[in-house]
């Protein structure tokens, strides 16, 4: 079995790579849907292979298999094989990436049908899938880093897919640069890992890590640097602003990259390094703070957004915040669980949003939608399922995963629980606000003729909604008679922190109270947006101060522009115009100028005036004699 795994593991990333090469190189020869079909088929093959690997691994009885393809870098002590690590964590991620990826690819066939550069689109999507698979399958940090940068780059390409629009290009560049800021921290972290453990391979590092003392400064530094990378990639405070802007890309891109897979790479990486993080309590606390702050902050911003994709983007940021919170609490497998369910329901939400945008002819403003429930029943139902899931209504998947995190928070500190619950309530509110505004009421934009999307788009929606509804059953906690299957499954790859279990009565109490609050919130949203049919104010209208601040996303973008971009540009000008042109250049030229000035000066002595020469000669003789006399 192990031999089989090692012999076919490379196929998983190879299929998308092949797809990339075919659709990329032959992009001018492929007709309308061919590129999409090729790409989707290959990603599906990849999914099937991953499934096969999953069952093989289960039946082999081994926890992990390392597949070495070749030696990538071998210089001195530094030995980096190009190797894949197939274990329970990576196989989970592979299944999510290829599974959700395949669905989104299929969906894209319909969504991108009319685009003239559809082949390029699928090529880039396949390249992304390939990079993401490298990321999750890599057996050492460097291979992970290849995928890490690769997905960042593909995200750059896909955000700027409609490159005619300079604003989109700017958004793409912003995403890439912000990711790169994180990547710098990440690569420094990797280098420190290497110098500490003399290896970058996961298995070797984690086997050595046990010998380290918890809280050692080196470990803290490493984990913080790795965290910086994760913060950049997973859009946490302070590097989150690129994610809402990244909605410039086509909607399937947002679903695949900016909801289901790439942004969760940071979570995956930290979960992967759980052993190191367990040794660094300071970093864990930082993560709790960051995650919680992001979760609430992004949710608050989400309350006032009117662009359907922006709402979802801030919701993604917020959900990622929950995952970070879980990571910070040491509940790594809960984070991965939430990651999984989030991949289902957020991809579904985005695809649904794509379906709506598709139907509305490109309109993304929720104030102009409305009453779509009747026109697009499938989209409505799937969207509803996803909304219920993200809000945490049982028995939808989001309930189980979020509840697990909330419980862990309560175990740690009730205050954390209250804050996290607050964030969840806000999430619930803005999601239902979105739902009501889009699907209920009457249609507000008369020019649009909404219609249900073609089957190629709705079938992925349906499959994903099924997953969103029942995804939670992957990991039913003991409270509900389950066995925490996913947690158990991941146990071999992730070392979660052991905490005191809450008594089941407390847990049930918490669940009931939170459910009651959720119901209240839904009712409130219903009263506001359906009964009273309140429309969010237009941007120009005056709002209360706080409302204005929230609607403008707390002016974070502006602050960044003011604090970073402007000074940077100023510095650049200063360096070039002042230091370069007024200091260094003149200094060098000055030597030349001084020489020629001196020449001009001396030239005057040499004017050819004979009597002057005679005088000079006499003067020279005089000096000479005087010199002799004196000496």
């Amino acid at each position, binding site marked *: 079995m192990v031999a089989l795994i090692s012999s076919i593991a490379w196929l998983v990333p190879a299929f998308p790579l092949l797809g990339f090469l075919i659709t990329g190189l032959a992009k001018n020869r492929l007709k309308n849907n061919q590129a999409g079909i090729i790409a989707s088929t290959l990603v599906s093959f990849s999914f099937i292979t991953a499934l096969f690997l999953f069952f093989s691994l289960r039946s082999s009885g081994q926890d992990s298999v390392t597949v070495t393809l070749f030696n990538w870098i071998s210089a001195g002590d530094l030995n980096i094989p190009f190797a894949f690590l197939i274990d329970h964590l990576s196989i989970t991620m592979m299944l999510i990436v290829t599974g959700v990826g395949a669905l989104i690819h299929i969906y894209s066939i319909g969504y991108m049908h009319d685009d003239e550069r559809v082949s390029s689109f699928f090529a880039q999507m396949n390249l992304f899938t390939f990079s993401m698979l490298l990321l999750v399958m890599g057996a050492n940090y460097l291979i992970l880093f290849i995928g890490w940068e690769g997905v960042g780059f593909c995200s750059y390409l896909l955000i700027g897919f409609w490159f005619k629009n300079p604003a989109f290009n700017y958004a793409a560049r912003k995403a890439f640069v912000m990711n790169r800021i994180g990547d710098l921290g990440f690569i420094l972290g990797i280098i420190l890992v290497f110098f500490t453990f003399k290896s970058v391979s996961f298995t070797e590092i984690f086997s050595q890590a046990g010998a380290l003392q918890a809280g050692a400064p080196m470990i803290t530094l490493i984990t913080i640097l790795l965290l910086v990378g994760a913060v950049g990639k997973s859009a946490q405070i302070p590097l989150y602003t690129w994610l809402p802007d990244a909605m410039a890309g086509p909607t399937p891109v947002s679903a695949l990259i900016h909801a289901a897979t790439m942004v969760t790479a940071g979570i995956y990486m930290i979960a992967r390094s759980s052993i190191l993080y367990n040794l660094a309590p300071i970093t864990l606390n930082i993560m709790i703070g960051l995650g919680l702050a992001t979760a609430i902050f992004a949710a608050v911003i989400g309350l006032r957004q009117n662009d359907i994709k922006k709402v979802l983007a801030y919701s993604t940021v917020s959900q990622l915040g929950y995952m970070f919170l879980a990571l910070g609490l040491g509940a790594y497998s809960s984070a991965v669980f939430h990651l999984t369910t989030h991949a289902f329901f957020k991809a579904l939400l985005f695809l649904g949003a794509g379906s709506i945008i598709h139907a509305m002819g490109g309109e993304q403003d929720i104030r102009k939608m409305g009453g779509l429930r009747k026109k697009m029943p499938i989209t409505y139902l799937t969207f509803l399922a996803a909304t219920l899931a993200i809000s945490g209504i049982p028995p939808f998947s989001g309930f189980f995963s979020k509840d697990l995190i909330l419980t862990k928070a309560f175990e740690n500190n009730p205050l954390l629980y209250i804050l996290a619950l607050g964030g969840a309530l806000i999430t619930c509110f803005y999601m239902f606000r979105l739902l009501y505004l889009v699907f209920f009421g009457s249609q507000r934009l008369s020019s649009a003729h909404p219609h249900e999307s073609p089957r190629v788009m709705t079938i992925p929606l349906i499959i994903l909604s099924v997953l969103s509804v029942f995804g939670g059953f992957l990991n039913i906690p003991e409270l509900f008679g389950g066995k925490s299957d996913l947690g158990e499954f991941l146990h071999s790859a992730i070392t979660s922190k052991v905490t005191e279990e809450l008594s089941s009565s407390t847990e049930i109490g918490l669940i009931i109270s939170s459910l009651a609050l959720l119901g209240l919130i839904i009712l409130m949203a219903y009263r506001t947006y359906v009964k009273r049919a309140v429309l969010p104010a237009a941007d120009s209208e005056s709002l209360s101060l706080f409302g204005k601040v929230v609607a403008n996303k707390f002016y974070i973008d502006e602050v960044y522009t003011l604090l970073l971009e402007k000074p940077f540009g100023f510095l650049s000008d200063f360096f070039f115009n002042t230091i370069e042109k007024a200091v260094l250049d003149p200094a060098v030229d000055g030597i030349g100028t001084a020489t020629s000035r001196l020449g001009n000066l001396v030239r005057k002595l040499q004017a050819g005036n004979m*009597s002057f020469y005679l*005088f000079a000669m*006499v*003067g020279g*003789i*005089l000096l000479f*004699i*005087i010199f*002799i*006399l004196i000496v």
Partner: protein
Amino acid sequence: MVFLFYMLSAIMIICALLVVFSKNPINNVIYLILCFLAMAGHYILLNAQFLAVVHVIVYTGAIMVLFLFVIMLLNLNKAIILRKSTVTRVSAVITGGIFFLVLLAATRQTFEIHAKYPFASDFGLVSGIGKVLFNEFLLPFEMSSILFISAMVGAMMFGKKDV
């Protein structure tokens, strides 16, 4: 006879100054000839009769005539006003004065030589010089003819119109 020395010296210096300060080139030449004649007197005083004669013949007879000849040839006999700026002339005088003082200072040591070397000259006549000239200095003497030839050729070359 001591008087003779001072008189000759005075004539020399006065003539030399006139050479410098008089404006007419002809006058310059005349004063210079006077100066050289006085110098010939000095040579006789120094018991160097041969030199005195040669001096008169070569300098006053040949060289100064050559000067005169050139001045006439170039029609420079009238006083041409070629004066340097006052500053230059003043500084020339000052420089000359300083030079005089410095040279005097430099020759300080000679002030005591006189005691060591009293006047003793008995070779100033043609025979005395000739013995030395044609014994020790024969080669330079012959070489000087080459110098003359080259000077002659040079002068002729310069004299040609289209060099």
